[in-house]
């Protein structure tokens, strides 16, 4: 059974079509990176998944239940932290956690234990007696994540969880996600690709309201394994670009002076061919480095295609 399944989701706001075709399915535990540029439809999709917005058409199933029909049941199984979490500002962090615990019908002892555990985990235990109204954006984000975990959700939905955090805060939250992903499915939207690359096991890319790709990270990297060779040569009169263009293994060649970046289809074949060509044309190189495509390059490629 899929933990999260979106099927042909569409959403229109007046004349603007925010979502056109969002379809993907997630199975098992781990972290799912939901990537897209600003305005791609990430937050709208998340609001539909959490039952806060209704799709114009299409369906969403969370742990097997239809969001439109069983919203209350699903809300028992999910934890949600929006991009800018808001609270009742007169409450303290501890009071908020206790209140959320009561909503999930947890016992008093369990609420107290979970509150301590989660506030410590998210690094705001010391501030538990302070009114939330006085919290910084980063502290609210941490509290938002802590409260989303109180019911031990099967699906944790985080909308841009690190956007309001400083570098230390980002590091802490990503570490927390890495720790949590073995116990639950974490669906995390972001446009900070470095963060996703670090923690995500599965990638969903959305652009202009349509899902362009949904693949496990390792599969994605191997299917976009258009590795590159960075090459720096000594000055020469030989036209290396023309030579490389005759070989189909070298797909694209970018160069600036004596520095070349060569996109290759098959890195094995390219590694065999390139040194031979350089030697046969008497070209000496000072730097030869093979690099795999990173998520940013894959993202750009998927979106631009």
């Amino acid at each position, binding site marked *: 059974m899929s933990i999260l399944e979106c099927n042909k989701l569409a959403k229109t706001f007046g004349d603007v079509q925010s979502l056109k075709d969002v379809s993907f399915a997630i199975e098992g535990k781990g972290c799912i990176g939901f990537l897209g540029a600003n305005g791609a439809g990430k937050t709208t999709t998340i*609001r539909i998944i959490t039952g806060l917005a209704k799709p114009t058409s299409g369906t969403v199933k969370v742990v097997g239940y239809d969001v439109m029909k069983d919203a*209350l049941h699903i809300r028992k199984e*999910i934890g949600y932290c*929006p991009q800018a979490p808001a609270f009742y500002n007169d409450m303290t962090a501890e009071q908020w956690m206790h209140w959320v615990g009561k*909503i999930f019908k947890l016992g008093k002892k369990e609420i107290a234990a979970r509150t301590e555990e989660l506030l410590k985990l998210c690094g705001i235990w010391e501030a538990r007696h302070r009114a939330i109204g006085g919290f910084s954006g980063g502290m609210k984000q941490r509290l938002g994540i802590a409260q989303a975990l109180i019911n031990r959700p099967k699906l944790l939905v985080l909308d841009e969880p690190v956007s309001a955090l400083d570098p230390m805060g980002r590091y802490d939250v990503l570490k927390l996600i890495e720790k949590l992903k073995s116990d639950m499915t974490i669906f995390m939207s972001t446009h900070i690709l470095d963060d996703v690359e670090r923690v995500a096991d599965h990638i969903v890319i959305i652009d202009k309201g349509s899902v362009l790709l949904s693949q496990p990270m390792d599969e994605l990297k191997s299917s976009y394994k258009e590795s590159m060779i960075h090459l720096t040569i000594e000055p020469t009169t030989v036209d290396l670009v023309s030579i490389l263009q005759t070989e189909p293994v070298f797909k694209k060649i970018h160069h600036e002076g004596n520095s070349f970046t060569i996109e290759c289809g098959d890195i094995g074949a390219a590694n065999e061919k390139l040194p031979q060509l350089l030697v046969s044309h008497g070209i000496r190189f000072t730097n030869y480095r093979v690099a795999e495509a990173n998520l940013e390059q894959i993202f750009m490629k998927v979106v631009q295609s």
Partner: protein
Amino acid sequence: MIGFMPMLSKELRELGSSLKILYIPIVFTLLTIMQPVTLKMLPTLLKDASNLPEGTIIQIPDPSVIDVMGSLLPKFGSLGSIIIILIIMGEIAGERASGVMAMVFAKPISYVGYFAAKLIAGSLLVIVSLFAGMIISSYYTEIMFDKVDWLDAMLGTLLYVPYILMTVAITLCCSAFMKSQVGAGGVAFVLYLVLTMVPQYLGSFFRKVSPSHLVDTASNVIMGVADTHIVAPLVGTLVLCSVFIAAGMLLLRRQEV
């Protein structure tokens, strides 16, 4: 009603932490006490405020305690309702605008439970404030004028409760579907005016069942007027309350968070 109890406990706690439970009864007391104090002080006020030649005698007969008590609720009327609208208008629209509603409805809380908790807490606040105002005003009326029939005073106040509940229900309903709390307050005020004033021009049936008639009926009960027909305006006002409560819940459910 899923999530009703945690929501209600939060609302009641908030009444205390925001000090609403303290200052709203004070405001209501000031509104109701103004009438007996003004009536008592009227000759002195007229004398001090006007430049009448020396020796002028102002003779105003002392109003009876029944007249004073009977005027408490009608004087409270519109101003009290405006204050109720101001208190309630941001209850839902404000939470939607701040984003806290998204945090609430991402948890297992039903729209009915959420609305009912807001309705009960808001109603409790205005009912407690109304009774506080009426008890204190009746007490001072007794000191300044004559003995008050406390049973009639409390029964009349009790009869007035559906009228203020209707104002709470109208405002919460508007707050449920408007995005801005000021807009919610404005629409609620217009609806309040329409529902209290228009029935007077629509024939005897609508006059009898109108909420405004309930205010007159409650005043009659306070004054101990026999032969007061309470059923028709009471039923009319309660029907309006129910309509706005049901509409509010429905509109909240239809609106996106």
